[in-house]
Every structure is written in C-alpha cells, then in structure tokens.
C-alpha cells in the first residue's frame, strides 16, 4: 500500500470517528456565538490529529506534509463531509505565509505559535472606496517615535469580532505611486480606537464587518517587511495553499452540490407526474454539470502538479477561480429553478457548511460572494487576458496617477 493510500485510509477512519453524522442538523440556524463555538471545537479536533497546519515547517508546529499528501487530506475531509473551517482562514492562509515570507525571526516567534494554537486573525485590506482598486486604499499610518498612529476604515473584515490580531494594509507614504506607499502591519484588535460593526449579508448571516480605526497605536515592531513595502508582502500568500484549498472546495461541490442535487432530484416530479429526471432537457443539463465538476477536479489536479514541478501557481489560479465560482453559480441556479416553489421556502442556514448548504436557492444567491470576493471575476478575466494571453492593459485615463 502506498503512503498516499495509507494516509487516505487514516483520514477516512478519523473522519468516521470524529465528524458527527448529524452536525448539519445540529448547526442549522446556529447563531454567531454557536457558530464560533462549533468552529473552535472543530479546529481543536483537526489540530489534535495534526490536520490543522500539516504543511507548516516542523519548527513552527507543522508536519511538513507534501503537496500531494495535502491534496489527499483535503479530498478525504471533503468526502467525509467535514465542516468548513472558516475562523482560521485568515490566520493560516493569509497572515502566516506573509509573516513566514517577510517577517523577522523575532516576529515569527511572536506570531506563529499563537496561530498554530488556533488564534483567530482578521484581514484589514478592502475599504469602501478601495475594492477592486485596492491599491487606492486610504487608511493612514503615520510614524510617531516608536509607533504608528492609524486612522481609517476597513470593510469585509471577516471574524473581526473574534479576532485578536489583524493583518492591516495602510498608507505610509501618500506622495508615492499608489502601491508603493503602503505598509503591512499586525494590529492588535483589542487596541483602543478599534471599533467593529458587523454587516448582515443578503442571506442573513453576519460573516463580515466594518472596522474603524481612530488614532490606533501600532508598535513599530509590528511592521512586517520594510516600510512602504507592504503591497509585495500582501501578495506573498502562497499559491500552493490556495490551490490545495480549492481542491477541497471542488470535492465539496461534487459531493454536496452536484451529487446531492441528483439525489434530491430523484424525488421531484414534473407537473404531469413524471419524474423530473426523466425529462431529457433536465438530463442534458445535469449531464453537462456532472462533466464540468469532473473537469474542475482534473484542472485542479493539474494545477497542483504544475505547482509541484514549477513552484508557482501563476495565472492558472485566476482561470480556476473563474471556472469554479461560475460553475458553482450555474449549478445552484439550475438546481434552484428545477426545485421550483419548494426551493423558495426560507430555511435557516448551516454556517459551517461552506457554499453548499443543501438549500439551492440560498446557495445560488450566496454564490455571488465568490464571483465578487477574492477578486471579482471581471478582474480575474483581466488577469487572464493580460498575463496568459499578453493582451494590453487598459490605458490609464489621462490625469490619473499610477
């Protein structure tokens, strides 16, 4: 038996032993507090099994798990219908890579063990006027002796209420060209002057927040990387981690999206009483979606293979992001329309369930957070056009500074 098969078996067994079979029903309608508690419990289970930060260097608490092994791990977790771990998304996938890449040894020592221990972080990047044009951000950090004074507003900060730390992008040089005057900080969320306001989203959840900073003091030893070098630090999130996370998402789409739809649709009938799945138009659509989900999986596998051999994810990641998010949207839209009126019944969400909650109409609307978030698909298509095909960028309008 290969190492991979052994690992697969181990994870599968662990899932059976650890994941409660009724967790979705238990978590249906969970309020924010219940959600956080459940998430913490789940993180603790993963950590105890060594599945929380398996790819980290041993010196920081990881197992140095290889990329193919990570693929196996995430596949099996998704197949086991594992809850989606959201509270440590920023700490593990955004903060830690930046600190590992650009932080001093002292900073790594200060922050990485806490993250490994499950500390919750949030991300302070986007602003009301700096969404797609993140380089235009206006939050200001002014050096004053041994600290910086920060004023401004961030938006779409998830987990801001629970977070102890925040990775923050702020402008330290207003005279420099946009992205060259930005610095990357770690901000203590309990600092005086930090105010958090939750934002209710259109399916009624409050995953995101607005964060206001009013004369917040950040010690200068919390600056990660050089002053005004923050933009590059923020780009350092390793492509490999994103790719591996996407593999898990593809598995979930297959299991809880597509396969769940086929199962559910077996019960549905057309108005004339015949089974919905007997309608050749329905069959054609489902057949198409079936194939596309398989293609997604294959594309991701190839992307991971390329990562292994060439080290970088490159613009392929943008292609995959577009493909995955739009496939998710199309699948949920189709399912919702096929479900008809019963699909329009309002049901409470299952906060730890990710993008497929078994409620197609809700999942269809919610899917827009993915075609918009993480870089809108319009921006993604620009990247593909420019970096893959070498097409010219839009010329800068007359009078606009770089």
């Amino acid at each position, binding site marked *: 038996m290969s190492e991979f098969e052994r690992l697969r078996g181990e994870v599968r067994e662990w899932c059976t032993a650890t994941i409660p079979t009724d967790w979705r029903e238990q978590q249906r309608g969970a309020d924010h507090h219940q959600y956080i508690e459940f998430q913490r419990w789940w993180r603790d289970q993963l950590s105890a099994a060594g599945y929380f930060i398996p790819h980290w260097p041993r010196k920081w608490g990881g197992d140095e798990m290889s990329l193919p092994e990570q693929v196996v791990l995430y596949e099996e977790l998704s197949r086991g219908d594992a809850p989606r771990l959201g509270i440590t998304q920023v700490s593990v996938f955004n903060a830690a890579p930046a600190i590992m890449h650009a932080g001093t040894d002292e900073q790594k020592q200060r922050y990485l063990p806490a993250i490994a221990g499950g500390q919750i972080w949030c991300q302070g990047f986007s602003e009301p006027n700096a969404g797609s044009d993140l380089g235009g951000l206006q939050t200001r950090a002014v050096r004053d002796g041994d600290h910086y004074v920060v004023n401004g507003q961030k938006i779409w900060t998830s987990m801001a209420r629970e977070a102890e730390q925040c990775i923050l992008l702020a402008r330290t040089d207003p005279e420099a060209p946009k992205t060259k005057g930005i610095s990357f900080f770690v901000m203590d969320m309990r600092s005086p002057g930090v105010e958090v306001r939750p934002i209710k989203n259109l399916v009624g959840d409050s995953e995101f927040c607005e964060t206001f900073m009013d004369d917040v003091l950040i010690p200068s030893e919390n600056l990660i990387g050089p002053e005004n070098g923050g933009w590059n630090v923020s780009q350092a999130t390793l492509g490999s981690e994103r790719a591996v996370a996407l593999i898990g998402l593809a598995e979930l789409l297959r299991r809880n999206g597509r396969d769940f739809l086929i199962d559910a649709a077996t019960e549905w009938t057309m108005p004339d009483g015949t089974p919905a799945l007997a309608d050749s*138009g329905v069959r054609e659509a489902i057949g198409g979606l079936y194939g596309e989900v398989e293609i997604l999986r294959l594309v991701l596998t190839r992307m991971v293979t390329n990562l292994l051999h060439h080290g970088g994810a490159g613009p392929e990641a943008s292609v995959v992001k577009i493909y995955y998010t739009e496939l998710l949207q199309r699948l949920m839209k189709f399912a919702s329309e096929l479900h008809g009126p019963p699909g329009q019944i309002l049901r409470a969400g299952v906060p730890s369930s990710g993008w497929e909650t078994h409620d197609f109409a809700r999942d269809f609307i919610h899917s827009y957070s993915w075609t918009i978030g993480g870089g809108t698909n319009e921006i993604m298509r620009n990247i593909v056009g420019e970096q893959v095909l070498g097409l010219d960028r839009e010329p800068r*309008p007359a*009078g606009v500074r770089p």
Partner: protein
Amino acid sequence: MADDVDEFRASALAFLTAHASRRMCPTGDAWGVGDDAIGLLDGYRDRIAEAAALERGRAWRRLVFDNGFGWLGGPPTLGGGGRSAQLDEEYRLLEREFDVPDQQPFATGTHLVAPAVLANGSDDVQRRFLPGLFRGDLVACQLLSEPEAGSDLAGLRTRATRDGDDWIVSGQKVWTSQAHLADIGQLLARTGAEAPKHRGLTMFLVDMRSPGVMVRPLRQMTGETHFNEVFLDEVRVPDTNRVGPLGSGWSAVMATLMAERAAVGSGAANSAVDPVARLIGLARHRGRAGDARVRQRLAVAHTNAELRRFLGLRLEAMATDCSPGSEGSILKLLFSEQGRSCGDVAGDLLGPALTADSGEWGAFAWTRWVTGAPMLSIAGGTDEIQRNTIAERVLGLPKEPAPKESGK
C-alpha cells in the same frame, strides 16, 4: 392616414398583379416542396449568372420606378412620389410576395447611400444621383471600411488630394459588397489632417469604372464571393461628386451607418424563410418532436423570434422613445443572437447531416445559415459596438475615457 395606406396597397397590388405572378410556394411553408434554401446572405457563386440576374433586376426596377412605386417617400422634383417613406416599406413587403427579379442589389443605393446623399449632398449631387439610385440605373457599393479601420472607421487612411477641379484618391477598402457590379461607390476619404480624426473626412461618389479602381473578390465561408477588396490607385474624382462640404464626411456617413443598423435588424435583412418554422418541421421530420430537450429549445427559438418581431413593430410604430440609433442596435443584437441560436438548434437536430449533403430536403441547406450567421454579429457594427451604443445612449453610461497618450 389609414385610408391612404389601404388605398396605396390596393394600387400597388394592382400594379404587381398586372406585371408579375405571385410566388407559388413561399419557400419553407410546404415541407419537402420547392427550394429548401435557408440562408442569411444572398449571393451567387457564378458571377456571369449574377450579372445576367442584375440586368433582369434593373429592367424590373425601371418598370417599378416609371410606374410611380420606386420612391414613394422621395420629392417629386427628383422623381419621387412625395408621400410617406412608410409606403416604400409597404411596397417592398408586398413585392416580396411576388415572383420578381432579385432586387437586393439596389438596396445599398436606396437604403444606405441615398440617406447620406439626401442629408448632406448639394442639390446638384442629389439631382444627378438620387433618381438613378432608385430607378436601378445606378447600382451602388460602399467604400468605407479598410483593413485598419473597421469598428474604428474614423481612423481610415484612404487619402483624397485636391488637384484642380478634381480629387486624386489612393487607398484600400474592404468588405465592399457587390463592388464588381456597382456603377458608383460611396467613398469616405481623408481630406485633411485635423484632430479629432473624424473631422478630416469627406464623402464622395466614385465612378467604379474610373481608371485606377481595382476590385478583388473575397470568398466567405458560405462559399459565395459577396464581398470584395477595392484598391484605389490615384483615381480621379471630380469635385462635383463631393457629398457635402469639405470635412463633413463623418456626419454624412452617420446617416448611412444608422440606416444600416436599422436595416440589418429589421425586416429588410430578414431571411424570406422563417427559420423557426423550418426548425419545427425539422424536429418533426427527424422524429425528435417528442424529445423534451428539443421541445424546450424550440420554445425558446419561437419566443425569441416572436419577441424580436413584436419589438421591431413596436419600435417602428413609436417616434423614437430611445434616442436615435439605439433601437436599431437592439434589433440588430437580437438578430445576431437569433442567427447563432437557430444555427445551434439546427446543428443539434441534424448532427452529422449538417456536415455532408445526404440529399435530405432541408438538411444540408442549413450550412448556409450556420456559416452565414457569424456575419450578423460583425457586419454593420459588431455586437460589441452595438452594446456600447445601447449602454451609452439608453443608460447614459460613460464612454471609455481617452487614454493618457491622447489619440488622433
């Protein structure tokens, strides 16, 4: 004015009945009977046959004009009927029910060139050209697009330089339909170096038999050679053939471009055969009528065709609620979409029968539609340009900003 229309129809029918016979089987109505042609672009594969057809067409056109039905909306001083332009459309639709020689070659002159000449041309130019265009004595072509100036027509480079009473024209034009048949060409050329670039353009009417005019056919994927390249090598054009003042070419051609959009989107460019009726027949005769998937797609095709038809009628009846040009854009986009989707359904129903001629009625004939359909989203203003027009005129969205390196 309703009486006028009924009265008019009666007199037009009387004329038509006296000089032509009704089409026996409007193509496509009776499955398996008659010509199964279904295409979007008319065309001949044989230029000799084409020239002979043109002569027959001219003879008919002359008869129509001399009997007062050639240009109902035109001023009587120029040979027109002095009535409403709507009646020209009425006549055209009536004529389609009769077996008459192909009138398509004259449409460029009457529907595209004439509006520009009427809007911009001097009395002299109007007198010398308009009656001929409507009577069929003059067949026109358009010398507008160039290899480097398609969507961005204002960037064209063909130059016209003044020489005494004439202009010397040199350059290259492309996508000129029927250049090989035309007597005159509607030319847009650069006469000045002003900025913005569209200010330096002037419109002329060129005698296509002039020395220096060379026509080279372009073969399209439907197989025909409807279009041409036209090379102009120091062609002498008299200043009396100038349409409008120097530098007024852009506004002159606007009339043509708007008319072209409206024409492609409306009835004028419609296939005489109803594609949806054909698709329904195809489904039935290929035993796919009971397939739920096919039925859904046919319902969609039916819906889109019906809504396009009703929208065309509605926009025609209104005195532009949308600003000028945008209703033509809407209809043209719908038509190009229909071209694509009907072709898709045909492909779905025919499968391999679309790729090789098995002799089955109404099957391989669809290849002309399928290979012609992409033209609809490109010619007469690409779909992308139409979308720009709609968004900017109907919704007031801003145009693309001028780039930092300011353009010509």
